[in-house]
């Protein structure tokens, strides 16, 4: 049964908004981290590809923020740039810095980390989007259908990098394994709905997080098996981004990305 915003109870609307904030903040932050790679990717083709993926991903965040705007939660720009770290619902994984150094000075970003983070995240996003195509909130189901078409290419792209680097030199394998470890340490809240699991279920917004996590693990297992490496294990997180618990890395990201916005929040840009 599909619903629209008009006939929603306050509890229903709140649950929907919670889900939209989680989805929007995830894509928004990861897209920002992707944009910091501009001009630094291993080669020019990759620079074109990853900036195109970041642009698509920012477009997805914009769609979710747009749905929140329709529900009366504020303007897209304010939602994207005007919220403090405590209000953010993104997972810890997407707020992590790309590596040592600042991108305006001497960044020493880690490409292995970028590949693993993007691949594992994109696979998780794909699992969620497939579930969201059947959500009871029709406008979200429509967005998910469209996002899915673009995600198709992102997924192939990152899977290709992942398998190629893990089939490459010993140094590449070593760096990839280190990156897998780092990404897994932060993956615990990717499949968490914070305090909203019950309400997501009640209003049939998205399937249970445990079910989605299992699908993610099964899909990844096929890929790693062919590469003769062990299945990565998701670690228990010491903080949960869905509950507004974040690292200083998010504070730094927000202060940089909202710099222009804060000059004059009333100017659209």
């Amino acid at each position: 049964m599909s619903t629209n915003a008009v006939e929603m109870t306050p509890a229903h609307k709140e649950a929907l908004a919670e889900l939209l904030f989680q989805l929007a903040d995830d894509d928004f932050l990861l897209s920002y981290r992707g944009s910091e790679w501009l001009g630094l990717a291993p080669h020019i083709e990759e620079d074109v590809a990853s900036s195109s993926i970041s642009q698509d991903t920012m477009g997805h965040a914009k769609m979710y923020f747009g749905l929140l705007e329709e529900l009366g939660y504020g303007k897209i720009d304010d939602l994207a740039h005007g919220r403090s770290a405590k209000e953010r619902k993104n997972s810890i994984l997407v707020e992590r810095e790309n590596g040592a150094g600042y991108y305006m000075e001497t960044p020493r970003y880690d490409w292995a980390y970028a590949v693993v983070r993007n691949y594992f995240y994109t696979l998780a996003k794909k699992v969620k989007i497939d579930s969201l195509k059947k959500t009871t909130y029709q406008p979200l189901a429509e967005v998910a259908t469209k996002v899915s078409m673009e995600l198709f290419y992102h997924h192939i792209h990152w899977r290709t990098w992942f398998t190629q680097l893990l089939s490459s030199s010993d140094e590449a394998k070593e760096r990839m394994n280190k990156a897998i470890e780092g990404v897994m340490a932060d993956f615990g809240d990717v499949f968490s709905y914070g305090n909203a699991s019950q309400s997501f279920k009640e209003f049939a917004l998205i399937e249970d997080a445990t079910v989605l996590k299992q699908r993610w693990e099964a899909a990844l297992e096929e890929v790693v098996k062919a590469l003769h490496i062990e299945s990565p294990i998701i670690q228990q997180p010491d903080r949960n981004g869905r509950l507004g618990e974040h690292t200083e890395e998010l504070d730094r990201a927000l202060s940089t990305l909202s710099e222009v916005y804060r000059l004059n929040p009333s100017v659209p840009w």
Partner: protein
Amino acid sequence: MYQPTLVAEKDIMEALELVQDPEISTVSVVDLGMIEGVEIHDSHVSITMLPTFLGCPALEIIKKNVVEQIQSVAGVEAVEVLFKTAPPWTSDRITEKGQKGLKAFGIAPPPKHFTEDGSWHVDCPYCGSTYVTLDNIFGPTACRSILYCKSCKNPFEAMKPISNLM
């Protein structure tokens, strides 16, 4: 007594045919299959459009160009352009005329078929050779890929296939 001019859908469609893709001057928004609906209420025109890609930065420019073009149609007083995601834009919405326009610009039209692993094939828009390689699935804009023709040794672009199967 003053009689408002009747706005005909035909005139609106003709005007839309004049709105080009900001980056490909040989195809219109109609050829690209971006127009989903036109509604006319007296002198008010409402156009529903489908974004090709959600993060496409050209959407705002396209919207502005559509508004300007429709405002120039006799009898039109107000224009509204809405972007919708349903039905999703797919690359098979590009018309035959649109495919010709793309080719004239050196861009291969989107392939009709692709395999499960996402691979697909197009011919070189310059010499028609099938002897081409895919350089980068991601091109200079969200909707295009970069290829290379081994026969005429030209790099070229192709519209990415976007389908409901994805």
